């Protein structure tokens, strides 16, 4: 591999890892509080991309504004999912799984009905140009994803460790019954967790919209990788999800560059299998007493 290709691949890995991280922490957060996996998380990401398509490309709003708008809009979608799917199916894992799996199809079909199936939505790159390092060109559009992801992860960390309701969220994840005894409303906390998960997935999709083909099915591939990340990182661990995002981001990007995307997915799954054998609770997962 040439030096310029190596730098290019490292930069791509960092960008890819950042996107994974913003998605995976939301998934881990939801799982921590509800002990339920949200299969529609990838569709939140897809909807985020469509927010940019709609507000930026169709309406002509400035790109940063369109990205910011994805946060409250998809957070609302997350809250509705909590209220209409997770809360009614609480305590019934199978029903919850089926319902969110169903939601993925509903959202895909709805978006397909509104904007067409199989059509790539061409979104003009708002930040043209590239940063040239040692013969490698790293597009600004990709580069801005890294600081935004760092900002989002830091904000979530601050929320969970320094804000009262964030601490209550951790308490709920550790022992919901005892959290309720302290006067914490579990329903409000799960609603908060799903708002954050949705909003973060929305931003991730919004950031990727000018880079990736925007289709109703774009959430599908990335969500499989995010599930692998969350399992490798240790299901409920936010730090584990971030760490695993970077490991998987690098493995995936390098494998795709050197071989192809099928090999990349295989490598990711192989890593997950290996981790599950050696450390079944995941890299930073805690064994429950």
């Amino acid at each position: 591999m040439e030096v310029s290709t190596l730098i290019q691949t490292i930069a791509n890995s960092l960008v890819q890892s950042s996107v994974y991280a913003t998605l995976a922490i939301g998934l881990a957060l939801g799982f921590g509080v509800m002990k339920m996996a949200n299969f529609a998380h990838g569709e939140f990401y897809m909807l985020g991309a469509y927010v940019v398509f709609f507000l930026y490309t169709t309406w002509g709003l400035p790109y940063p504004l369109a990205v910011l708008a994805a946060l409250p809009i998809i957070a609302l979608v997350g809250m509705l999912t909590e209220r209409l799917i997770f809360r009614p199916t609480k305590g019934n894992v199978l029903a919850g799984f089926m319902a969110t799996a169903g939601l993925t199809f509903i959202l895909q079909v709805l978006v397909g009905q509104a904007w067409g199936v199989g059509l790539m939505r061409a979104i003009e790159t708002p930040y043209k140009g590239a940063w040239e390092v040692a013969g490698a060109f790293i597009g600004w559009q990709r580069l801005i994803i890294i600081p935004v992801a760092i900002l989002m992860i830091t904000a979530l960390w601050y929320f969970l460790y320094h804000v009262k309701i964030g601490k209550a969220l951790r308490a709920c994840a550790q022992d919901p019954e005892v959290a309720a005894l302290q006067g914490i409303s579990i329903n409000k906390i799960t609603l908060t967790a799903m708002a954050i998960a949705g909003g973060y997935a929305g931003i991730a999709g919004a950031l990727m919209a000018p880079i990736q083909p925007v289709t109703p099915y774009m959430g599908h591939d990335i969500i499989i990788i995010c599930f692998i990340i969350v399992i490798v990182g240790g299901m409920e661990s936010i730090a584990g999800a971030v760490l695993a995002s970077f490991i998987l981001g690098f493995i995936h990007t390098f494998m795709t560059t050197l071989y192809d995307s099928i090999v990349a997915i295989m490598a990711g799954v192989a890593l997950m299998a290996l981790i599950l054998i050696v450390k079944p609770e995941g890299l930073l997962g805690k064994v429950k007493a």
Partner: protein
Amino acid sequence: MDVEQGTIVTLIGNNGAGKTTTLRAITGLNHPSSGEILFDGHNLNKLAPEKINRLGIAHVPEGRRVFPQMTVLENLEMGAYLRKDKNAIRQDIDMVFNHFPVLKERIKQLAGTMSGGQQQMVAMGRALMSAPKMIVMDEPSHGLAPIMCLEIARIIREINKKGTTIILVEQNAMLALSLADRAYVLDTGNVILEGDAKELKENDDVKKAYLGG
């Protein structure tokens, strides 16, 4: 069953007698299928746990159940979740540290990494932090060394002296009866004996069944 304000009432009985279930019904973790639970004129039967906390009842659960990956201070803060009076909360944290000086030394330690006795202190401190009128305690002495049991008993008495009503569930009937003002003996869900704790301690049936002769 009646629990008078400012007293310590204990429920004793064998495993499966319904002691824990009774406490869980009081704080809303279970809902009673019949009967009524009244507290300060409020019917608790259908209230959610977070509403009952607001009425002034705290629960020290069986097995302590501290938030394992939160620090001692964070555990205490969670106890005060519904309170908004920052100064009073700070005073109450000091009050908890007065009861349990070891917690002050370990303020930043993750509660899950502490010994059983220290976790019990965290659980009791957390209950105190809601400034409750009444605390229900489920087996606070369970699994603790004898010295730690006496320490916990001393603190229960201290908390009660300051005016907090306590319902105490214990396997250690001797300890419970020596702390309590009144006692109920439960057997498979029914009250089979009740009365003054000092008198029950001398009751022959109670002695035979629960105090080891």
